């Protein structure tokens, strides 16, 4: 039953130097395995080739993000996540792995705006070098006091994933960084 399913901030939005929004329910599956061995199974299930180190690659229905040498995160439709776990486990039968639905453990934010402003706003709260972060690369880092992952879908659209429990903190951080009179003009 899908009744009563809500994302962490129920679609909250904020306008400023860049616009920030809670993207809502997003399917996420964490897969831990020997990535080289699992590549075929992952491609078969998600339709996306195994990403290279730090890359996030997208297909029709899914994106696959490289998280660590033995972990990828699969982004898919929220309703598909449990099925994705089952399919992966089946495709990886006999290979040591762990596939688990983590959709509800996370929050996903979309940031849109001019490229320079996007990089400036994020640079107020992360030590990661955003000057060199190109679309298609995911940077796992911290947003001030909490862990997060950042990537650019396009030059004008960035994504941030954090844990669900700190979604409000991250949203407030982003909104304050995007305060209209706080332009930096560095990027």
């Amino acid at each position, binding site marked *: *039953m899908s009744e*009563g399913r809500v994302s962490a901030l129920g679609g909250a939005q904020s306008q400023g130097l860049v616009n920030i929004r809670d993207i809502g329910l997003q399917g996420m599956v964490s897969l831990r395995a020997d990535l080289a061995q699992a590549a075929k199974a992952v491609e078969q299930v998600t339709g996306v080739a195994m990403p290279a180190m730090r890359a996030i690659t997208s297909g029709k229905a899914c994106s696959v993000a490289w998280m660590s040498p033995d972990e990828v995160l699969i982004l898919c439709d929220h309703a598909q996540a449990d099925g994705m776990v089952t399919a992966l486990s089946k495709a990886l039968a006999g290979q040591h792995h*762990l596939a688990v639905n983590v959709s509800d453990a996370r929050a996903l934010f979309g940031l849109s705006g001019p490229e320079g402003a996007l990089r400036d706003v994020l640079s107020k709260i992360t030590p990661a070098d955003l000057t060199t972060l190109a679309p298609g690369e995911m940077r796992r880092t911290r947003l001030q006091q909490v862990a997060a992952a950042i990537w650019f879908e396009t030059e004008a659209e960035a994504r941030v994933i954090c844990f*669900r429990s*700190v979604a409000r903190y991250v949203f407030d951080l982003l909104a304050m960084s995007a305060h209209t009179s706080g332009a930096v003009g560095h990027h």
Partner: protein
Amino acid sequence: MSIRLSTGGRLIDRSRKIGFSFNGKQMMAHPGDTLASALMANGQMIMGRSFKYHRPRGVVASGAEEPNALVNLGKGKRHEPNQRATLTEVFDGLEATSQNHWPSLNWDIGEVNALFARLLPAGFYYKTFIHPRPFWKHVFEPFIRQSAGLGRAPDPRHSDPDRYEQFYAHADLVIAGGGIAGLQAALAAGRAGLKVILCEQSAQWGGRAPIDGVEIDGQPAADWVDAAVAELAQMPHVDLRLRLMAAGVYDHGYVIGYERLGDHAPGQDTPRHRLWRIRAGRIIAATGALERPLSFAGNDKPGVMLASAMRDYVVNWGVAPGARTVIVTNNDDAYRTALALVAAGLSVPCIVDARPEANGPLVQEARASGLRVLTGMGIASVKGLRGVVAVQLCAQDGAGEVLEDVVCDAVAMSGGWSPVVHLWSHCGGKLTWDAAGAFFRPDHARPPTDQKGQGFVICAGAADGALLADETMVNAAKSVGRVLAEHGKSGAAVPVAKAAAEAPMQPVWVMPAGAGVKKRAKMWLDFQNDVKVSDVQLAAREGYESVEHTKRYTTLGMATDQGKLSNINGLAVLAQALDEDIPRVGTTTFRPPYTPISMGAIAGEARGEIFQPLRRTPIHGWHEENGAHWEPVGHWRRPYCFPKKGESHRDAVNREIMATRNGVGLLDASTLGKIIVKGPDAGRFLDMLYTNMMSTLAPGKCRYGLMCSENGFLIDDGVVARLDAESFLVHTTTGGADRIHAHMEDWLQCEWWDWQVYTANVTEQWAQIAVVGPKARAVLEKLGADFDISAAGLPFMAWAEGKIGGFTARAFRISFSGELSFEIAVPAAQGRAFWEALLRAGVEFGITPYGTEALHVMRAEKGFIMIGDETDGTVIPQDLGLAWAISKKKGDYLGKRAQERSHMTDPTRWKLVGLETLDGSVLPDGSYAVADGVNANGQRNTQGRVTSTYFSPTLGRGIAMGLVLHGPDRMGEVLDFNTTKKDAKGEMRMIKARIVSPVFFDPAGEKQNV
């Protein structure tokens, strides 16, 4: 008296006027003025009082090194003390007040300290306030506190209304200083394509060159500066920042920058300050040099200032500190001030040059324009009380016999220049003494080194000791060339700077050289802290040979300017007194920040709602809407209880417990850690992590377990559920989730990397709700489950999954209360919907949400331990009567070897027992059981302590757990526990408590096992 000149002032906009106030008096200024220039333009020479003697002081410098002109800025919520008038840009409506005086700036009662200056030498406080001992607390300290401190702290009831932020940046090259050296370096690096951040602490580019009449490539320096800035502004990879000070340099190329965005333009709604946290490949410190004062008697009087500062006020702001200015110098540069004053139509009665001869081009120019140049001379004293009325001249070589009185109202002094080597030194760069210039400059052979062991700070221009404009340009080009070479690039053509040549300076540390003690006691070194030549000499006589000790004994260089102005003068005086070379005496340590930065900038955005991340469960919103009283648990907020209108917290807790014990309660347990452990070696791995056996747990079953550190101490506990042959779900404590997951990964990655185990922390994937009490099953049945939840189908310590009320759920038959209990996990996105569904289904059973306090009391009634209450990092499971949960069969587990050490097996370790007060009262938290006798410190001996203590509404009395010497063997014995209260005789009041079993309620476990 100081005045605004009718012409000149390259930085001010004479077409506009703005109003500001000083000590309540309305004054006018022009945009571009600093508070110091504006005050002088209004005839206000006295701007502050010194710290110790409360001497009246005027401005002595024009920049960051200013020790005297410190003021309070703003009022109310925006009040801020100790702001430098020389760095404060005036804006319309600025309010400043002077500080460190009473009752007024012009008449300060503390000035009497100066009359007793002879009695207040260096170390006076250390020597005087020692005896008699009791006087410290009642006489000396209150007196010192009353007179100590500069400025007035902001009202603690106010919170800062401004916004602050931080900014992380990454650059190939950070250039600190926007003078001609910094600009030239930026041009070269920018043209070569490096990512550059060029920062300048002031509001103007160009530094000193435009003031000093320098020509670059045949054009006035100001024009060259404008062109350079224009070119740099076109480069997208170069970030130009005014009002951004490189405050500190740290390990591995880390630079802290301090950007002032709102100070000069309040009301714009910008952040007030922005703290830059920059990772720089290389740092060029083009930070220039600072002029030094000369040490002559009365050098601290208002109207005596640095020659370069005098020039700045005239040229930059069209302000004349005096009408008749005597110049006193040991170098040629000060002649520029004489010429600038004359050019502005001001009078220079004479130039007093301590050198026996002076014939450089600037000197000749001064002579040619009719100025009187006196060589081999010095100032014997300055006459005037709150300003200068005359100076007395003497031979520099003598003892100060007065040769002539010269009437004047200002003195411009120059004792030479010191490169600003702070950024070079912050991270360990060493210095070398330059005898020709009498200054410390960077020792290129010993730079601060980065992660690759390479020097990463390079000084350029005057900061590297190249003081003259032509040398500066060449030096800057060479410095940036080294950075470019590392990138495989080369620099462009070097602009040619032209400035008048200068004859060598001659070090003069005391003026006149043979001054007696009376004069030396009037020669200021540290103006703000009132440290004089005589104080440093006294310190040397009293055996302070180390410069670091002398600094602390005399407070030389410990004022808010941190010795920028005259530390070198002090070191030289110390060296002379010790009959040592200056380089052998050395310098004190340069520490960041270069000038003070605001606490707001350091805090950044971390205040108010986002001071810390506040973790919220999926059901947080419901708790908030239903009046939860919160308890912080780590970064989580958990409901402590849900008080009804007019109900006390204690009453609410009691009500929640009784409702749960007699009906059904509901707890949000989502914060409990949940970690999946999967793989062929998962069982083996958990056997190493837990003290008991986990590999034998059957799928569908749950088992309680203990985790210890390798040190043997208990670190976490919880229930493990076996999901399938290869998968376990590990429950940790709320605080343990991240810590235990990291602990698992540590052992898997670093010790047993060949074991096939994967972990995943799924704590936040699930909302977990405990349905607790005799009616728990009835509530679930009402909601409807598609799997067997009967006592037989889902017995105690089993788990099952399926749908409950349509929600996909896992139900664990585990209990932390001793009641029939189902802990039910549903996906977090549905957590609140499920919680509300349970509440609706439970209405007829009187379902009652309860908080953490009810949870704590109920677990204590059952004698269940709580990590963090019964454990404190020194407790092992054996102390807690948990030997049953320690496997005897296993050859190894983390902590097993440590638990075999003699201290761990010591039979006198305190052990867990229950405690029941004889009068039914509640023992104080942390109370100790006293024993006979006293220890070596005269304190009562102890034989146990309380670890948990509550009022039990179930039993109607106080219950407690505690660790007691031989406790389990002393059942029934009565102990005395201390309190913080005293009885009628003034003795510590004790509470008597009997040692009992820690299981106070339902010892057979009949209630949970149904």
